[in-house]
């Protein structure tokens, strides 16, 4: 009976590589790709007066000792959702989506004995603003930020910052549109007078932050109190100056291992504890003036992009972390 459950998505290469190490250490595990949970697995949650039991295939969820939440599947692109698309102006798919979320919630809390690597509940309760507040509480420097729906407020904030500012999505960066007309919603530099010439007085609440003059960007993979840091020399390239994710594939940014100062390490540990996370990918900036500024943590962030350039063997370390949690 496998004691480790891996919740991930179809085709996730990082999961494959970690599983190779679980095989190497000869431990049993069950992999479930959340995107084909409903199509390829049998789930049943029976509840009566004195008993409740959630089963996936032949396993009771309460029997899993360790659960690794690697990746959530994209329900939006499941068969069920695609069939319901455009029916009754998407009211059906919206209903289905809520139902699905409720089901995943029930699944999540059925792992009564489990130790988590990346606790789903902690992930779900952590938005960008809460992250900034917790980081600051943990002693980390954060960018000065304002979320507002009001032009006057925005103008005043930009004036206060004096220097440059950026606007970025409160939730996730996204690319959408049609193949011919793509819109990329990602951090963008704001001109000094951006809001002065803005026609609307009110708009959707937007996140504005001070622009940080980068020396380097840091991407830190956190696992069980250890930090594996990588420096990204994105300021050497105009294309990647504001956001290294505007990848330059011809001449990729330099990615090298980095030693964080001890005080920063301590604050990161403290922050992750506040956030209830034992793993995550943390984005920071080291400014030209020597500030280490916390931007955000992505609990399910890609570790491959740190592990590979820095040769950290994070896939093996994650496998060992899961195995340790069994004992």
């Amino acid at each position, binding site marked *: 009976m496998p004691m480790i459950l891996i919740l991930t998505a179809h085709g996730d290469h990082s999961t*494959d590589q970690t599983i*190779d*190490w679980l*095989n*190497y250490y000869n431990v049993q595990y069950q992999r479930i790709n959340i995107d084909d949970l409903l199509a390829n697995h049998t789930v049943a949650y029976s509840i009566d007066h004195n008993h409740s039991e959630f089963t996936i295939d032949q396993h009771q969820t309460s029997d899993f000792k360790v659960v690794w939440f690697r990746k959530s599947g994209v329900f939006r692109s499941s068969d069920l959702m695609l069939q319901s698309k455009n029916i009754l102006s998407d009211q059906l798919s919206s209903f289905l989506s809520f139902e699905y979320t409720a089901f995943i919630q029930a699944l999540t809390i059925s792992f009564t004995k489990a130790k988590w690597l990346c606790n789903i509940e902690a992930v779900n309760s952590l938005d960008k603003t809460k992250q900034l507040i917790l980081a600051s509480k943990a002693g980390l420097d954060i960018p000065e930020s304002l979320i507002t729906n009001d032009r006057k407020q925005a103008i005043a904030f930009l004036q206060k910052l004096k220097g440059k500012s950026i606007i970025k999505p409160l939730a996730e960066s996204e690319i959408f549109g049609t193949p011919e007309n793509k819109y990329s919603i990602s951090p963008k530099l704001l001109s000094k007078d951006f809001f002065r010439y803005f026609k609307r007085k009110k708009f959707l609440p937007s996140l504005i932050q001070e622009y940080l003059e980068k020396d380097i960007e840091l991407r830190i993979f956190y696992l069980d109190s250890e930090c594996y840091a990588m*420096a990204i*020399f994105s300021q*050497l390239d105009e294309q990647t100056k504001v956001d290294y994710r505007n990848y330059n594939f011809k*001449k*990729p940014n*330099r*990615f*090298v*291992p*980095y*030693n964080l*100062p001890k005080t920063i390490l301590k604050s990161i540990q403290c922050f992750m504890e506040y956030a209830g996370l034992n793993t995550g990918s943390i984005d920071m900036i080291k400014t030209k003036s020597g500030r280490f500024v916390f931007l955000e943590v992505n609990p399910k962030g890609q570790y491959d992009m740190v592990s*590979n*350039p*820095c*040769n*950290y*063997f994070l896939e*093996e370390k994650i496998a060992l972390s899961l195995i340790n949690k069994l004992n």
Partner: protein
Amino acid sequence: MGNKYIRLFACCLIVKGNRRATLVDLQRGDFIFLPLQIAELLLQSNSVTVAQLTSAYSEEDAGEISKYFDHLIKNEYAFYTDEPESFPLLCLDWKTPNHITNAIIDYDRNSFFNIRDVVNQLEQLGCATIQFRFYDAFDFSFLMQTLTHVADGIGKIRSIELSLCYNPLISKLQYLKLINLFPRVISVVIHSAPDGYDYKFPGSIHELRYIQQKITNETHCGFISPEYFRANKYFFTESLQFNSCLNRKIAVDKTGDIKNCPAMKHSFGSVFSTSLLEISHQPDFQKVWSMNKDKIEVCKDCEFRYMCTDCRAFIPDEYSKPAKCKYDPYTMSWA
């Protein structure tokens, strides 16, 4: 910049040869040459500032050195910093969870071992990459059957390279469709073709190539040339410790003999009588895995040694450099 430190990016590594060094860029997959003196200076550069590094030199030499450093900075091989201790060296470990990482299966019209059975065994061994080399033309259905079998497996085999003999009955379009159908097939090379052809799939590593070279048996392999150099972290770190061609490789030649490489004489057994698992665990079979370039005569003095794929099939004796290598590191020239 005199009181700063010059630091190579951790992915740029110096390999000293007999007369010159290479600076191997593992991230961008390239290399440049460096004079040995510059390489020496860079190797000490963690602990001393640029001013200290050049202090022992005449003004003229120091000027030359600074020019060299500026060139390295401009081309993003190095950077100046006040805190060299924040930028550790790259860990050069190489390890793998898989007992066997790659395999070659040779086949021609006289072969009669069961390919699918060999594939099953490789999958059990954790082998991620298989190269199939067919020396005679086979029909399309044989190819389909073999690949379907791999696709229906447990998913351990992640990439497949096909080297196939030209068959006038199979069109380019069929091969392209095949690659689309089986994304694990990353490369198809059609040899003995009437014309050359080269197609790379946009945005992916997949390729279809036709070459005119006639390949009738395993002796076509083992050539050493800069066009085969590979500057990447996986290959480089593996080469530091292990044989860059044969480490964790297993091969089945066209008669079904199990070998380190199909072109090597020694057979450890036959697929008809023994398993790949059993052979792959024999110390004798694994002996060649640890034959790294530092143990090979001439290669150990070569500035290309961790970028170049070794060959142990065509050599006069055990510790000789590959017979098909025409480079001489003592004169820095290709014969």
